[in-house]
C-alpha cells in the first residue's frame, strides 16, 4: 500500500465516520459540524484523486457557503444547546431508505466502474477551462442563465414576503424600512452566487 493509498483510506474512514455521525448525532448543530468533517474528507479524497479544482470548489462552496448557511439558519431559528429528544417516527423508514439507496448506488458503481484503475494525474486548470468554456460552452451558459433566473425568482418571492408579511409596519421611519429579512436574502443569493464565483475563476 502506497502513501497516497493510506491517505485515501484515512479520508474514507474519517469521512464515513463523520457521515454516520451526521445522521446519528442527537444535536442538530453537532450534526452540521460533522457534516463539515465529512465534506472536508470528500475534498481530500478529490485531492488524492488529482481533482484539485474540484477539491477546493468543494471547500469553497460546500464548507464555506452551504454549511455556513445551514448553521446560520439553525442559529437564527433554534439552536438549543445539549442533546434533544428526537421524536422522529420516520426514523426506521429513513434508515431503510438510506440503506437501500446506498446498496443501489454501490451496485451501480461496482457494475459500471468495476475494478478499473484510476488515473491520478492532476487535471490542469487550463484543460478544465478548455472543456467548460470551449467544448461545453453552450450548456454551461444555459446553466448559468437558469441559475440567474432562479436567483431573480427567489428574490422576487422574498421581496413580496417582506412587503406583505405579518410584520407590523410601524411607520415611515427610514431605518425601519431598511430591515431586511437577512436569512431570506442571503439564502437566496449566496448559493448561486458561489456558483458564479466558480464560473469566473474557471475562466482561462
Amino acid at each position, binding site marked *: 500500500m502506497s502513501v497516497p493509498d493510506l491517505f485515501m483510506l484515512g479520508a474514507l474512514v474519517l469521512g464515513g465516520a463523520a457521515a454516520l455521525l451526521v445522521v446519528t448525532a442527537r444535536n442538530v448543530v453537532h450534526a452540521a459540524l460533522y457534516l463539515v468533517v465529512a465534506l472536508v474528507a470528500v475534498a481530500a479524497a478529490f485531492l488524492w484523486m488529482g481533482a484539485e479544482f474540484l477539491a477546493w470548489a468543494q471547500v469553497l462552496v460546500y464548507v464555506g457557503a452551504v454549511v455556513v448557511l445551514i448553521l446560520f439558519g439553525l442559529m437564527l431559528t433554534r439552536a438549543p444547546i445539549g442533546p434533544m429528544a428526537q421524536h422522529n417516527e420516520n426514523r426506521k423508514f429513513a434508515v431503510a431508505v438510506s440503506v437501500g439507496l446506498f446498496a443501489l448506488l454501490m451496485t451501480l458503481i461496482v457494475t459500471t466502474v468495476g475494478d478499473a484503475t484510476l488515473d491520478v494525474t492532476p487535471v490542469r486548470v487550463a484543460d478544465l477551462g478548455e472543456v467548460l468554456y470551449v467544448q461545453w460552452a453552450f450548456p454551461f451558459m444555459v446553466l448559468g442563465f437558469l441559475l440567474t433566473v432562479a436567483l431573480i425568482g427567489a428574490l422576487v418571492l422574498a421581496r413580496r414576503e417582506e412587503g406583505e408579511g405579518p*410584520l407590523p409596519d410601524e411607520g415611515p*421611519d427610514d*431605518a*425601519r424600512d431598511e*430591515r431586511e*429579512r437577512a436569512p431570506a436574502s442571503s439564502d437566496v443569493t449566496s448559493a448561486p452566487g458561489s456558483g458564479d464565483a466558480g464560473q469566473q475563476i474557471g475562466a482561462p
Partner: protein
Amino acid sequence: MTQAAAADAAGGVLPGAPGESLQVEVRSDGDLQTQDMNLNIGPQHPATHGVLRVVIDVDGERIVRAQPVIGYMHRAFEKLAEHRDYRQIIALVNRHDWLSAFCNEVGVALAVERMMELEVPERAQWIRTMMCEWNRIMNHLMFVSSFGLELGAITPMFYAFREREDIQNLMESATGGRLHFTYTRGGGLKDDLPLGFLKASEELVPLVRRRNQEYRDLLLGNEIFHARTKGVGALEPEVALDYGVTGPALHATGVAEDSRVTEPYLKYDEVDVTVPVAENGDSYDRFQVLLDRIDASCDIIEQCLGNLPAGPFAAKTPKQVKAPEGAIYVRTENPLGQGGYYLISDGGKQPYRLRMRTPSFNNVQMIPHLLEGSMLPDMIAIMGSVYFVVGDVDR
C-alpha cells in the same frame, strides 16, 4: 405603557432571570414564525454608562420591546438629605450626577439662599456662573467622547479626555476637587479663585473652541457617522415635553427651553446665552446640539471673565443655616438637562423634604419610546445621545 404592561404580564417579575439564558418564546400569531430573543443589556454592559439595565426583546436585530430597569445605583439621597444640614447636602448633591457636580451644588445653594433671602456677593455669582459653564463643558466632552466610542470610533475618547483633563486641572486649582468640587457654600463660595486661574481660563477657552471644531470635523464630517445617526431615534417635541425630557435631547427637537434664559439664575441674565437648537430631534441633532453647547459655554465663560468684579466671595451667613418654613423650587440648567431642587423646610437645620429633580430620570424614561421598532445597533446610538448618568437616574 408597554414596559409596565410587560411587567404585569410576567406577574411583576421581569423576564431574563439568570437561569433562562437561552429560552426563547415562539410567537405563533402571524404566518411567519419568528422567535423573539430576550436580551439583557446591562446592568454590566459597555454601552450603558453604568449600571442601567435595559431588557429588550429582539426579533432578529429589531427591537420589539424595551424596558429600562433602574435602581441599581439607588443611594437614597432624598432620605439622606433629610438627615443632613444644608452644608452637608452640598457635598451630597455632588454625587448623584457626578459629571455635573458643580451645577448640582449651585442648585441646592440657590434654594437655600432664596429662602433665607441671602444676598450673595457679585463676585461669587460670577464665579459660580463661570464654574457652571466649565463644568458643563467637562460634562459634554465626556459625552462627546463616549458617543463616538459607542459608535465604534475609539479616537474621540482619547482626544476629548485631553481637554477634560485640562479643565479638571483648572477646576481643581480653584476647588480642590476633580469630580466632586464642593466649592459652593450657602451665601457664596468656599474660597476665592487662586492665582493664575483667570489667565489659565483665558488660555483654555480658545483651545477648547479649537478642539471642539476638531471633533466636529472628526465626527460630524464622517459619512458613517451620518449613516449611523441621521434619522435614528427621532424624538418629537410634544413627546419630549410630555415625558419631561430636557437638555440637549429637548433642544434637538427644536424647543429652546433652557432655564438659563427663561428663568435666569446666577448671572445668566447679564450674559448672552445662546441655546443651540436643531430640528429633527434625532441622534445626529442631539450630538450636534451638544457640540454647539460647548461653544456656547465658551462664550459665556469669556463674558464671565470680562465681567468678574472684585469684592468678597462669600456673604456673611449666620452660623447655622436654617431655611425658613415654606417650600421653594429652584430650576437650573444642568449639563444634561433641567435640574431642580424642590425644598420643603420646616424651619429646622435639615430640610423636611428635598426632592431632586434630575434630568436623567425623565430622559431615561423616554428611551423605550425611541427604542421600540429600531435596530439593536441603533439602541447604542439612541442611548448614547439621550445623555444620562445612571447615578442621576437612581439618586
